[in-house]
């Protein structure tokens, strides 16, 4: 390893990227040397995804320069980028569900070798060798669509390794892995580094990969806010740089012991998703449900709202049993659900802000078949004001709003229905730092007003800041129930992934 700047494998200078008026990256300098591991830290929306998309050639920069291996690239595209040895493992893995494991692993390698013929046996050999190199066993002929999430991620890693990668960028590499799997991943990375391969970890929780990294690089709101040797950072200081706050949020006040039970879930099971879930939710309580990706936390949340149909069990709300697997019945019974992926599941991006709220109350404002548009829009407007949505024009498409404001629109839709239980899946995913704290305030306010809130999240500080009780899920089972006030972030992280 050398620090001579000419030897840098990647050198980005003054890189700026704007999307339709929003500056995602603002004059950022970034260098990576061969064999170096760099933590690229930042909260969601800090610009780290944009940075890697620029490197991968998926997006084009607005201004600035990118040098790869000493060469200045003005028109980077995925082909050039991967030929230069830059491999990205995207968070969604970008695999081909209809193709086999072997082919998925070998595809980009064969593509970049410019051979016109496809040799199945060669792709199998290559895939086999790579799988062996990282010591995992996945059937080569299985179609990727049939694999569990963790295996899909491993296939993604193998694909990057199969090409002669000189830099591997891993977007949120550990979200789906258990501690044991993370450790074997780190082992693989140590070996790669010895071969001169550079690695960039992109994550909002980096404590686990800090030990193999040389350098840390922190982005916030599109700007570089900290950079330095990894040894100078720990989990706490990383969080501080990422959020820009020193003071931790106030933990929630404890639940009134006299409060009545709003929702009780008993023996809820769904094959392959979750098993024998039992818990109660009191009025005014914020209950956290956490677990790794694939632990069943989202399936359970969806089942509570009828979006997934459990095989057995019972959900009782206010003394009444809710029919399973029927979101309309659940919504009418008073359950609200704000999904994790706002852009594809939560909002109608091309539709107006006011419509996105009003869609929840159409039937209430309909009289003899016709909508009372004035009262519908009036009510939606009131909720937007109450939640302090900053929008110059409520008739503008909702996609013109920032992440934080979009999330408030999604919240407004459900709050206008006066739910008794509100399920929030990843309430602050993709929300900027300032809005995040405000959304946490809203969550606490909701609970104080007597609503039962369920927060599904793997953002541990968020859980600790909002929840009185946290359920930990592992392989579909609720394995632990923790009092929020009684545990530190590190301890919670350990229990989550052990």
């Amino acid at each position, binding site marked *: 390893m050398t620090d001579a700047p000419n030897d840098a494998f990647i050198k980005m200078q003054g890189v700026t990227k704007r999307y339709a008026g929003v500056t995602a990256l603002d004059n950022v300098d970034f260098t990576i040397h061969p064999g170096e591991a760099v933590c690229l830290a930042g909260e969601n929306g800090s610009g780290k995804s944009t940075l890697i998309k620029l490197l991968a050639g998926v997006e084009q920069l607005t201004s600035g320069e990118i040098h790869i291996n000493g060469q200045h690239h003005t028109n980077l595209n995925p082909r050039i980028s991967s030929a230069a040895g830059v491999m*990205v493992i995207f968070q969604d893995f*970008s695999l081909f569900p209809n*193709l086999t494991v072997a082919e998925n692993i070998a595809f980009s390698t064969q593509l970049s070798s410019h051979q016109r013929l*496809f040799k199945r046996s060669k792709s199998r050999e290559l895939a086999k060798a790579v799988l062996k190199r990282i010591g995992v066993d996945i059937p080569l002929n299985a179609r990727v669509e049939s694999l569990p999430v963790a295996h899909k991620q491993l296939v993604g890693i193998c694909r990057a390794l199969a090409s002669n990668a000189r830099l591997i960028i891993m977007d949120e590499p550990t979200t789906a892995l258990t501690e044991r799997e993370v450790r074997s991943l780190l082992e693989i990375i140590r070996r790669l580094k010895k071969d001169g391969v550079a690695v960039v970890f992109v994550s909002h929780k980096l404590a686990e990969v800090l030990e193999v990294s040389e350098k840390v690089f922190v982005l916030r709101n599109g700007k570089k806010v900290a950079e330095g040797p990894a040894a100078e950072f720990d989990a706490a200081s990383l969080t501080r740089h990422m959020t820009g706050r020193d003071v931790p949020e106030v933990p929630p006040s404890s639940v009134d012991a006299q409060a009545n039970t709003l929702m009780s879930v008993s023996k809820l099971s769904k*094959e392959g998703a979750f098993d024998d879930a039992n818990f109660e939710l009191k009025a005014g309580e914020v209950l956290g449900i956490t677990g790794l990706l694939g632990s069943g936390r989202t399936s359970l949340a969806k089942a509570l709202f009828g979006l997934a149909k459990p095989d057995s069990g019972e959900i009782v709300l206010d003394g009444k049993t809710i029919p399973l697997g029927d979101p309309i019945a659940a919504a009418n019974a008073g359950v609200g659900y704000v999904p994790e992926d706002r852009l594809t599941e939560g909002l109608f991006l091309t539709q107006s802000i006011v419509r996105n709220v009003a869609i929840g109350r159409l039937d209430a404002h309909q009289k003899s078949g016709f909508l009372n548009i004035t009262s519908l829009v009036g009510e939606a407007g009131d909720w937007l004001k109450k939640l302090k949505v900053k929008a110059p024009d409520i008739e503008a498409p909702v996609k013109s709003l920032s992440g934080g404001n979009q999330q408030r629109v999604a919240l407004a839709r459900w709050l206008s229905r006066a739910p008794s239980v509100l399920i929030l899946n990843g309430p602050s995913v993709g929300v900027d730092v300032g809005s995040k704290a405000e959304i946490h305030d809203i969550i606490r306010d909701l609970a104080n007003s007597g609503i039962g809130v369920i927060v599904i999240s793997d953002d541990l500080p968020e859980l600790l800041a909002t929840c009185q009780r946290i359920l930990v899920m592992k392989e579909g089972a609720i394995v632990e129930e923790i009092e929020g006030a009684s545990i530190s972030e590190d301890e919670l992280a350990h229990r989550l992934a052990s």
Partner: protein
Amino acid sequence: MSGLFPKGFFTRNETLVAIVIIGFCIIATLSDPLFFSVTTLSDLLRASIVLGILAVAAMLVLVSGGIDVSFTAIAVFAMYATTVLTLGLWPEMPWYFIFAISISIGALLGAINGIFIAGFGLPTLIVTLGTLSVFRGFLLTFVGSERISALPPAMRNFSRMMIARGTTESGDFYSLPWALAALLIVTVLTWFILQKTMLGRSIFAIGGSVESARRIGINVRATQFFIYVYVGALAGLAGIIHGSMGRMSDPFSLVGLELSVIAAVVLGGARLIGGYGTLTGTLLGVALIVLVQNSLIVIGIPSTWQSVTIGLLILIGTGLPAYEAKRAAAKAA
């Protein structure tokens, strides 16, 4: 993949279609023993040639995640324009030149689809609906709208070129035209492209996930463009064979057949969402459609019910896997 049958063998479209075909043949033979003969087989094979080539083409489009309804218009355009051109320029032109012209015209028209789909990124159904009427309208307005039965001699002769013909001992007459070889060549060539070239694998990859394909550097536009040119070329070939074997160049023929072709492909297991489709399935689908078109009457269904039958086959062929997928998704949620 151990055991006598591969996993999921019995729920695959190919298997189901094969079972239906066998069932159809058994019922047909029971109600009319003459059905089970070399004559029937050679008739059905002849009827499969044009449909088969078009189906292979349509399958390729479905695998890539699109849908094409214009290939019949391309076929008839290529056939008729080639006939007119040949008669006007050099009536004695040898058959392979005639074929080459028709294939080239087809490829050219396919390229027009390709420009709008790959270049402008327009929805495939709407583009090909549009080009369907553009090609047909252009043909009938500017090239001609008269049936031509005085074909160039080479085309007439082509229809008489036989691999084998004769009469079996039991007195059944049969003939296998060389045109059948065209279907064989097309099938093998397409198999080679799909299974043995990176281009073919890229077609599957695009059908599986366009975004992923882009990210790993597959040239999506070039691949799509190739697909529509290749499909056009195959349509040109199918068209000229259709004209030669029917011994007439009819500018009003073929268009309308696209639904049956798509039915065949969908029955064979190709999915509209892209990424799935096999040649075996497609050819089995063609066999079933040809049976329905030619022998429905043998199993006691009047031929006026033909389009009801094909429509139902499309619905069942797409409905079963779609419903299966919906249930699987509900289970996985």
